[in-house]
């Protein structure tokens, strides 16, 4: 199975998520992980770069990237009038403590007191 077909399978198997977590880089399927890690490392890549890297035509690469955007893993940005693709990172989750604990901490850690 070629890279393109494998990527399609991996993308289809994945539901939509609200952004990428750095933790995802460890457990994404191989094909998706390869692209995601490269995009993260370079903090964005153009379509041409990605196509070259994947050994695909720009049209094939575009199809994969459009699906990754739809799945919420990457986002399109304009850089010098060219479309680039960057990781769409999810917001780091807040710590799940009960409201009472945060309230108690706020009383102790009041910034006005510091």
């Amino acid at each position, binding site marked *: 199975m070629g890279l393109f077909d494998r990527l399609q399978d991996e993308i289809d198997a994945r539901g939509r998520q609200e*952004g990428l*977590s750095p933790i995802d*880089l*460890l457990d994404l399927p191989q094909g998706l992980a390869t692209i995601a*890690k490269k995009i993260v490392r370079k*903090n964005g890549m153009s379509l041409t770069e990605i196509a070259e890297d994947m050994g695909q035509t720009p049209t094939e690469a575009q199809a994969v990237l459009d699906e990754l955007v739809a799945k919420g893993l990457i986002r399109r940005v304009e850089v010098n009038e060219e479309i680039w693709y960057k990781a769409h990172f999810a*917001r780091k989750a*807040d710590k799940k403590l009960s409201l009472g604990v945060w309230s108690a901490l706020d009383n102790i850690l009041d910034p006005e007191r510091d």
Partner: protein
Amino acid sequence: MSKIISIHSFRGGTGKSNTTANITTLLAAQGLKVGVIDTDIQSPGIHVLFGLDEDAMGHSLNDYLWGKCAIEECAHDVTTTLGGEPIKGQIYLIPSSIKAGEIARVLREGYDVGLLNDGFHDLVENLNLDVLMIDTHPGLNEETLLSIAISDALVIILRPDQQDYQGTGVTVEVARKLNVPRLLLMVNKVPEVFNFADVQKRVEETYNSEVAAVLPHSDEMMTLASAGIFVLRYPNHKVTQALKQVATKLMA
């Protein structure tokens, strides 16, 4: 071409912040422009080594993550405040806030990981850095994984301790999965009675990874107690020589 270097360990107390601060200083002493960012938001501390007082901190990484300022506004030029021989290059420190309320706020509200990632790259570009050193929180967490994922080189520090040995195995595995281009190990705080060549050989064989240096336990380092930059206070010490070795390998 600029380099992003992360200093990490699985366990706490291995000497990450001291190592980061000292390698930063050694690289700046060679004439390089070096940024050093404290991503240990939960327990920041490297600012102490650089003598940056809480009251003088102004903007911190926390302010940037809350959208209050650009990342460059958090960069403090600490080059001339360190004492010792004048440094040819420059050191920009991006501290994390030491205020309890601000640490609690980040823990409670979280932050935009994409913004942190953009911040790393913006620092390199906007300050025209030769090197960005990332001081990390111990263990595996989102900040650590992100910094490893974007780093050109990673130094994993361990002590000759069974807990460190096991944890280092985990970190090496993660680093390889994240395709770090250059991975170096540094064995720190080694008792003088150990055979250092043996330690190096065993660690290299265990993790199949290069050991950049084996550093002895140092009473001088313990006595200095993060009150300053060791390599400036003790330029001829064997720990300084070992740290120079690490710096050289990182820039090779």
